């Protein structure tokens, strides 16, 4: 468990000190983290939930780490995406041998490794204050990576992102203060034991939730996401959409289902459900009207995040509980892989065409067949066609909704999928149109196309590995 944090953290420090070794450090960290994740999965599958008392004290005085099925799943997902981005970023950053390109490459690696450290720390920690530090680490790294693009729009988007991220963190932290004042602990499990229903914890949970939904870009606090995700360098956009927003969502799950489940009332759950549904519709409609490919993908993220929040209303009953949980997280995993693939393809298109205006992208399939194929496969998962992970996730959510008698969930999922099909088709029809001479000016290295395809294949194949997900998610989840 410790290697998951120490590995990328030390690598980040070394990558900064020795700039020419940045990529090597990223691969070294990938090796350490890969081994650590695999052995952790084995330990969890074999021996159940794994815990670790940092410094040997244990909560409430010390900080506890805990790896249950959910945490392990997200750690593995993070490792997969981070490795793919590491492979993709090296040729992406070496596009030109200009001072700007060298500058970007120099700072990309340490920032990527910090981001990885923060995500691993976030998934393992059981301590509300420690999670605050991890959130700040995550936010700083994400903002600095967006700003790395260096253009005006990226800088403005990064600044807005930073303001949202910092104020959201402070809302969260004030909530932590109230929790500590009430429970005299910030350990998730101990808070659950000591939590009385009352104004202090109600307001504390509201503060923390408010901060985290801003970080998770849930409608209507999604406004910062499209510019930040669309203007960042392509590998960074992939990381942000696939993982960073999911970190905040993950923490919301921990708060509402483990630390303070007494507050998970039907009214609160319905509010989450309504916001999720609004996000699906609003994000999809906006995706349909975008003229730039990266903005379309970013709005699609806003929509796809909405599905995750449907887990909240579906977790109120007994029958659909586990199905909804698995469906939401399967969807999270499938979206992470599909969205990474899409942003990487967008990066390839930007490289080849010099722009990402959808109207002028005729002939992707001719010039970049692998990328076009990857885009199509990722689209299959986003829309939710079988056998993709997107299909399996939506199916589980749908059947949980029907079992709970919440028909509106089915309606929202259906409409959302139709809209997704429409915006994916918009891009694909351009992709298969005959190429206009002079559009495609630069070649794309095969590894950049291959990485995107690999992730798209994972997204599509994830539906077939659904039973493995279910087995893992059962371990240590919020059920008796």
């Amino acid at each position, binding site marked *: 468990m410790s290697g998951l944090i120490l590995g990328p953290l030390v690598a980040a420090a070394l990558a900064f000190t020795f*700039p020419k070794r940045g990529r090597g450090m990223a691969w070294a960290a990938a090796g350490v983290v890969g081994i650590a994740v695999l052995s952790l999965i084995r330990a969890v599958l074999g021996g159940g939930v794994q815990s670790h008392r940092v410094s040997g004290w244990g909560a409430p*005085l010390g900080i506890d780490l805990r790896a249950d099925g959910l945490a392990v799943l997200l750690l593995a997902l993070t490792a997969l995406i981070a490795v793919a981005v590491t492979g993709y970023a090296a040729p992406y950053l070496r596009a030109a041998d200009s*001072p*700007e390109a*060298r*500058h*970007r490459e*120099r700072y990309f690696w340490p920032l990527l490794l910090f981001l990885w450290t923060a995500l691993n720390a976030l998934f393992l920690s059981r301590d509300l*204050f420690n999670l605050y*530090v991890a959130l*700040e680490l995550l936010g*700083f790294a994400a*903002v*600095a990576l967006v*700003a790395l693009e*260096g253009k*005006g729009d990226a*800088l*403005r988007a*990064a*600044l807005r992102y*930073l*303001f949202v991220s*910092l*104020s959201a963190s*402070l809302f969260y*932290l*004030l909530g932590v*203060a*109230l929790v*500590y*004042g009430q429970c*005299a602990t910030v350990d998730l499990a101990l808070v659950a034991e000591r939590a009385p229903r009352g104004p202090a914890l109600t307001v504390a949970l509201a503060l923390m939730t408010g901060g985290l939904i801003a970080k998770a870009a849930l409608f209507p606090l999604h406004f910062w996401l499209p510019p930040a995700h669309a203007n960042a360098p392509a590998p960074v956009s992939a990381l942000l959409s696939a993982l960073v927003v999911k970190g905040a969502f993950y923490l919301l799950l921990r708060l509402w289902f483990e630390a303070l489940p007494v507050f998970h009332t039907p009214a609160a759950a319905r509010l989450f459900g309504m916001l999720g549904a609004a996000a699906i519709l609003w994000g999809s409609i906006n995706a349909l009207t975008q003229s730039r490919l990266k903005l379309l993908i970013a709005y699609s993220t806003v929509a796809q995040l909405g599905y995750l929040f449907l887990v909240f209303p579906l977790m109120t009953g007994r029958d659909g509980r586990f199905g909804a949980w698995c469906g939401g997280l399967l969807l999270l995993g499938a979206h992470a892989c599909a969205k990474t693939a899409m942003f990487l393809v967008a990066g390839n298109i930007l490289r080849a065409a010099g722009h990402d205006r959808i109207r002028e992208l005729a002939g992707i399939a001719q010039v970049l067949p692998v990328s076009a194929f990857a885009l199509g496969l990722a689209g299959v998962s986003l829309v939710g066609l079988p056998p993709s992970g997107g299909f399996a996730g939506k199916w589980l959510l749908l059947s949980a909704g029907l079992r709970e008698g919440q028909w509106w969930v089915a309606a929202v999922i259906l409409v959302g999928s139709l809209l997704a099909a429409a915006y994916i088709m918009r891009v694909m029809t351009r992709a298969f149109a005959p190429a206009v001479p002079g559009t495609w000016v630069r070649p794309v290295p095969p590894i950049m196309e291959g990485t995107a395809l690999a992730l798209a294949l994972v997204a599509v194949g994830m539906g077939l590995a659904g039973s493995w997900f279910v087995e893992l998610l059962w371990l240590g989840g919020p059920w008796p």
Partner: protein
Amino acid sequence: MPDADPRLYLLAGLALFAIGFYSLVVQTHLLRRIMALNVMGSGVFLAFLALALKAAAPMPDPVPHAMVLTGIVVAVCATGLALALADRVQALEANEETPAPEEPPSAETGSEPEDAG
């Protein structure tokens, strides 16, 4: 001197948080907004320390104290990062107003000369 009333400082902390939040949203100047974030943070720290004083037997609770120290350091890091970013954005906007910029936009990037070896 007897101990202060923790509730007084707790309320002051919450007031700073609200003032900071209001100013963050309403103000447009980047420096004011960065200061507003700092004031919000100070409000949270004040709340933490007031709560620590409530558990003052025989001394205030050291755990929130350590948390606030961590928070102060994180806050100054955030300020440094935000100022650097705000400066870049403001430079852009100043450049947009004058058609002929003094320095090319790429002057902000580029490799460090001292790293030749």
